[in-house]
């Protein structure tokens, strides 16, 4: 009987499997360190939480070929400028509320989640709020009583009343504003923002 050629031997492929797995994992770890540096709050891609004190827009970037968030002049949320710590605490509360109310099983955030309700990545900038001047108030009203403030756009789908307190609703709005300032490499694409600051 002929000997099995090296490329068909179990031992060769076992070693290859171990080598390929280990190498891939080492590369992934290395990339993870670099990525973590680039996505910490306060980095160029993921802004500080105090960005909620500013106007945020989404404008075309010629070099990159898609829109990127732009941080504008001061425009504090609910008219109250927050310190870095206060802003961080508010955004943290917003994230806890979003997780506790299980938002992700109807909505998507950064495109991940469920598809029963719209994506929230640029919820802060969506033209559905009408005018930037009344946006915060409309968002607050809606989140605190979505059943009676529902706009179903013909789908008949209404957000259930999740009994958010005013504090939780404001925290969610802060969270959505902060999230709209993350550089998501042009996602969502070709987005048409709400008019802000006399645009």
């Amino acid at each position, binding site marked *: 009987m002929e000997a099995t050629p090296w490329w068909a031997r179990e031992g060769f492929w076992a070693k290859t499997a171990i080598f390929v797995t280990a190498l891939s994992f080492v590369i992934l770890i290395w*990339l993870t360190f670099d990525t973590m540096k680039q996505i910490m709050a306060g980095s160029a891609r993921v802004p500080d939480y105090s960005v909620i004190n500013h106007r945020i827009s989404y404008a075309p970037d010629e070099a990159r070929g898609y829109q990127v968030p732009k941080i504008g002049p001061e425009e504090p949320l609910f008219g109250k400028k927050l310190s870095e710590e206060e802003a961080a605490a508010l955004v943290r509360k917003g994230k806890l509320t979003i997780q506790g109310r299980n938002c992700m099983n109807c909505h998507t955030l950064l495109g991940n989640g469920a598809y029963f309700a719209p994506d929230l990545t640029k919820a802060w900038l969506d033209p559905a709020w009408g005018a930037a001047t009344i946006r915060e108030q409309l968002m607050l009203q809606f989140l605190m009583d979505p059943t009676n403030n529902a706009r179903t756009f013909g789908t008949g789908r209404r957000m259930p009343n999740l009994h958010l307190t005013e504090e939780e609703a404001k925290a969610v709005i802060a969270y959505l504003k902060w999230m709209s300032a993350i550089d998501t490499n042009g996602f969502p694409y070709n987005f048409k923002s709400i008019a802000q600051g006399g645009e």
Partner: protein
Amino acid sequence: MTRVGVLDSSNLTGGQRLAVKYFTVALILFGAQILFGLLAGLQYLKPDFLYGVLDFNVNRMVHINAMVVWMLYGFLGSVYWLMEDEARHPVVGLKLGEIAFWVLTLAVAVVVLVYLFVQYGPGDIKTIWFINEGREYIEAPRWADIGIVVVVLVFYFNVLATFMKGRFTGIGGVIALDLLALAGLYLAGMFFTPNISVDQYWWWWVIHLWVEATWEVLVGAIMAWGLMKTLGVSRRIVQTWLYIEVALMFGSGILGLGHHYFWIGTPDYWFEIGGFFSALEPIPLVAMVVHSLYDAGKHELKSSNHPALAWLIAHAFGNFLGAGVWGFMHTLPQINLYTHGTQWTPSHGHLAFFGAYATINIAFFYLAAQQWRGNVYMSAGIAGAWRWKWALALLSIGVLGMTMSLLIAGYEQSFIERAIEGSTWAGYFKAQTHPWFMQAMWWRQIFGWVTAAGYLLLVWDLLAIGAGETRTATQVGHESEQAQAGAQAAPAAA
């Protein structure tokens, strides 16, 4: 004494008895997955249905959690099933394994009851610990996470100790290393951060590196054993293929993780890395199709368990189509920019999870049913064979039908919401109310019912197959195993 054709636990070894407990819960959760999927699907068509009682987010959460958990139960059961045969040693620490099973099952029951009756909690860390973590697929609260880790460690002890006391085969080695990675990766999902980019980065470590890497390798190992068992394929062949698959699977799947890092705030070098490696991900799945079909053909489809073999072949095709082709279709960033977060994803998800994982678990349910009835005959010409054939057909047609319906919805959504309307909420709703979208949702629901019918038939068949049959199973594989064992022993003796 073995009683052929009669359901009797004395026909099973200790490990197999524990395995059928896992399989039983898995099958019940499979039913729950379908039920809550049907409720959620119906809410697309009748949005007021159960509004304020069982809202879409609850139904959808139970739908996907039941799926993840029944698949894990199926895998754990399958490993307990094959462990003793593979290691040639009884399960070490079986009693501990039994306790772990009951603890896990109790925890799952409590988590589901809290999902259904408490549903959500206030915006503080206690909700994450005790009610719902609110992160897709891994919603289980933190206390349950810790319980899962403990149970998996017990399971891991069973696996490692059994193989060490018995013999470490190639299949055993792959399972042991893979389970270590699978358990370790779960830890990456157990923390809270307000930074959603960091959150989703690690969240994908659990979701992707489970589903597209460690689960795939685990089913590769289970499949290898399944082919030896049902067809009698030689160990040397299946193990060589298994190593090739592991190399290709981890070689493409680990860095293929990058296809989830296009739009979550992560740097744009992930475009190239994610695009390239995820494009390679279908290759190991092609290898699996080739080798399972080749083996089946070489053995002229003479198998010891026809339904199990049919489901193993369904697994090879389903994995390639659902995970490979459907994944590849929208994996490159240039198309994913439009498809990410649309119905494309559930289209891929339905076919991939069914094709890659439901199928192989069902194959093992049949292996268990056979042994439970005293290694009863399950080859050609069994009584009531129409049941397993129709269950296979209805489940496959149902899932494929849902997949195609959701794909059409996904195309429509990508074009109308994203490409034309510019991804605003008005664009989203315009796409959601379009007649093509609504037609697709109706078809998805209809095929959901077909899937449910297939499930009911499957349950009936698993309970009835082999009852009253007096013949024992067709013998396969022993010659090749023995011949090979002899061939390996000879040089050593020389």
